[in-house]
């Protein structure tokens, strides 16, 4: 079923998850991955290979912003931060997802 989901939707979902994570505050890539794993009870396995390209895409589109900061290990780390445009995008993605899941639920749980 999942494999048949349109690519755009998957991309959209991953983007939305990243944006949502960053809404809590700036963070680096690994922390974002960990946070998504933990909060979804590892249910949605974020493909680690697609996380970073997604972050770069979001940065290119101006939804997130990056700065060099310091990681917990004391090493230089690229810290991502939600921009105003990103916040708006997150709201839009959330609304879309809500409509989508409501529609799907209506069909799946109808009698």
């Amino acid at each position, binding site marked *: 079923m999942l494999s048949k989901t349109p690519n755009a939707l998957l991309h959209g979902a991953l983007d939305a998850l990243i944006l949502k994570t960053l809404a809590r505050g700036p963070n680096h890539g690994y922390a974002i991955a960990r946070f998504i794993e933990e909060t979804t009870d590892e249910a949605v396995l974020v493909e*680690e290979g697609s996380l*970073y390209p997604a972050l770069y*895409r979001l940065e*290119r589109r*101006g939804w997130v*912003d990056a700065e060099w900061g310091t990681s917990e290990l004391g090493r230089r780390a690229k810290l991502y931060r939600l921009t105003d445009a990103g916040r708006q995008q997150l709201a839009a993605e959330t609304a879309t997802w809500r409509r989508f899941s409501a529609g799907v639920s209506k069909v799946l749980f109808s009698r």
Partner: protein
Amino acid sequence: MKRSLRSWLWRVPIDQEVDEELALHVEMRTRELIARGVDPAAARELALSRLGDIAHLKRTMTDIGRKRDREMRVTVWLDELRDDIKFSLRQLRRSPAFMVVATLTLALGIGANSAIFALVDATLLRPLPYGDPDRLVAIWEHSATVARGYVSPLNMMDWQSRGRSFEMIAGFTPAVGGMVMAGKDGNAETVSRQWVSAGIFDVLGVRPIAGRTFTRDDDVRRANVIVMSEPFWRTRFNSDPGVIGRELRLDGSLWTVVGVLPGNFELLGETSIWAMRPITNLPPRARGAYVLQAVGRLKAGVSIEAAAADLDAVGGVLAREFPQTNKGRGILLQPLHDSLVGRDLRRTSLLFLGVVGFVLLICCANVANLLLARATVRRRELAVRSALGAGRRRIIRQLLTESLVLSLIGGALGAGVGAAILNVAPSIIPHGLLPATVALTFDARVVAFSASAAVLVGVIFGLTPAWKATDFSSADVLVTEGRSIAGSGGKLRALLVVAEVATAVLLLFGAGLLLRTLVAVETFDRGYRAESVLSMLVDPLGSKYPTPESLQQFYDQVEAEVSAVPGVAGVGWADSLPLDFFDAGGISYEIVGDPPVQESQRPTSEYQVVSPSYFPTLDLPILAGRAFDTRDTRGGLEVCIINEAFARSFQGRSPIGKQVALRPTSSPQAKPVIREIVGVARQVKGRPDEVKDFVQVYVPMAQDLADDMFLVVRPKAGRAEALTGSVRAAISRVDTEQLVSVRNVMTLEDIAWAATGRHRFRAVMVISFAALALVLAMVGLVGILAYSVQQHVRDIGVRRALGATTGDVLRLIIANAARVVGAGVAIGLALSAVGGRLIQTMLFGVRPLDLLTCAAVTLLLAIIAALSILGPAWRAARIDPAIALRNS
């Protein structure tokens, strides 16, 4: 802004960025796995494998990262540009006087240029509105006496059938004539008509919008067929498609309408209908009738040179076959575009382009000067910015943005000025200067030209000041407070003004030459002495006066009736008017008794049919022999009067009593008319700027009556046009049934005015531009003087304090101005020596290096410059040493 900060302050190469980020990820994941109890040896492997194909991942990230950085650079650039523009506008708003002077200067320069560009574009650049216009060629015949003449239909057909270079050749008669169209109600009207051969529309690639054009079949059948213009179809037939195939009665015969041509189509001259003149099966004597303007369409890939060689070969064969007509005749090919536009118009366009180009340069120099002055004032500001870390490139970019903003505002205003000029242009451009196929329009091309001119100008006049203004070590400027830096900037500004003055002198000199030419062509001796003469074409539309006798009677009655009008001093008739001969060389002549001359070598003459009263009416003196009188009747001894140029072909012998054999040039083998010369009339000008006296023969009206004649009326006193009403009333008293068409009412002065139109147009245009250049140059001069006075207030104050008189101060200022103006005039006159020669072909009655003009220009410049420096000199003279020293 945040993003740009990151990218500028934390610049990390993209590869390193990706490597570090992934390394950190792997490192932290490994630690996490170990903490969860994974074997440390395997943990790192596992962490890596979870990322998948690392190389591929890195490539993807680097790729996106590169694109991101590129876009960011553009964004930053745009941000800076926006900031620069905002800053520029703020700066300009802060000095409104500077902004107004600079933008208006640019608007004038760019506006004049865009209007002239429209002219050049229309005449020289844009292709003709015909299909595949590059392959169209005008074909002429030339002989010993005619350098560029029309062609005979039989020759044209042979070129077509024997030559191999042309897809098709066709022709038309250049002059537009009239046909009388009979209406249903019995009323007649004259319709303008141009004769064409059947193939002309196919050669030009014109498609009819209704019906068809002429075919070869029409030609072979010698059908009476016409096509009409869209405006005529619309206004006269309400765009009724039913008119196609209908027969119209024209000049008494029936003609079938076969098609309608698109509205913008024109050959040479405006016409309502095109009537087909058959060219197949013409009699052999038509070989000598040179009546057609031929146009050929080259086969694809054939050059005009190859076609010329091809036709030359054909012409050589024809000359052997028909030596009588074709010996000594050659064929001339010319791109149709060149032929339509003409050398004169081409030169005029280029002249204007050169002139406005110089005007624009002066504008640039002025604005550059203003900017230099401003830059000097702003050095402190710039030095501060430089000290705060702005690079020189960044500051230059900012200053360039400022000048570009300025020039774009000027360019936008200039486009408006150009549109306004083009709006009034049609009313000042003399009729006939622009061929009908050339249209002046303010279109996207002109706008594009204005825009590129603005950008170019902005860069040119902005770069030097920007470079100069940023050429400092900041410490220096900050210390000296920007006071003592007049030095090199001042020299550059003075040089700019010298260049402006030189350019203005050049333009004034050209204007002076053209003005003297205009005076020469307007004050030439017209030959006749009447001051003011009214003329009108009287056309008794055919059928009412079927015989020459009745027609002559009609003309005589009109003459008698008009003579009786109060205030009329003289009335005469002529079939053409002085300065209005459109077709030079109407007849060829031979002196009877002299050895015969070969047909193609016969001299030609203008042929004018006049009434006996014509000479006294125009007060045109008969120098020898007699004028026409009542002896010269129809059927009587055939006589003529020749002009002075004609008389010279008798080489000193008296022409009176000699006989000449006259033939129309269009049918050289016709039986000649033998006429006895009874008088010699004073030379009348054929064109105001003719270089060779024009040969003319007068024939009495009774012996060669034309269908329509010009009536000429001289008033006893006052202006001739005041008689128009009473003369027309007199004509309608004779023509009681109102069947006579009276048109082309004008005075001979109008005709002379029109004949000198192109000289006047050139003179007026160049004088206007030269005046503009002079004003701009003086603005520049006043600018540097005022500025240098301002810069030297302390200096002058010290001199005054040390005892210098007002005279000393004035001498200083005047010497300053005289150096600049003197250098400018000297350089300008040197350039004029070259410039005058370039426009030599447009001059008449004045030499290209005219000393009077030189002197006048120098004097004019001296006076204007003296007036211009009054202001700055006054200010300098009033400097109070005490105040000047205190303020510094």
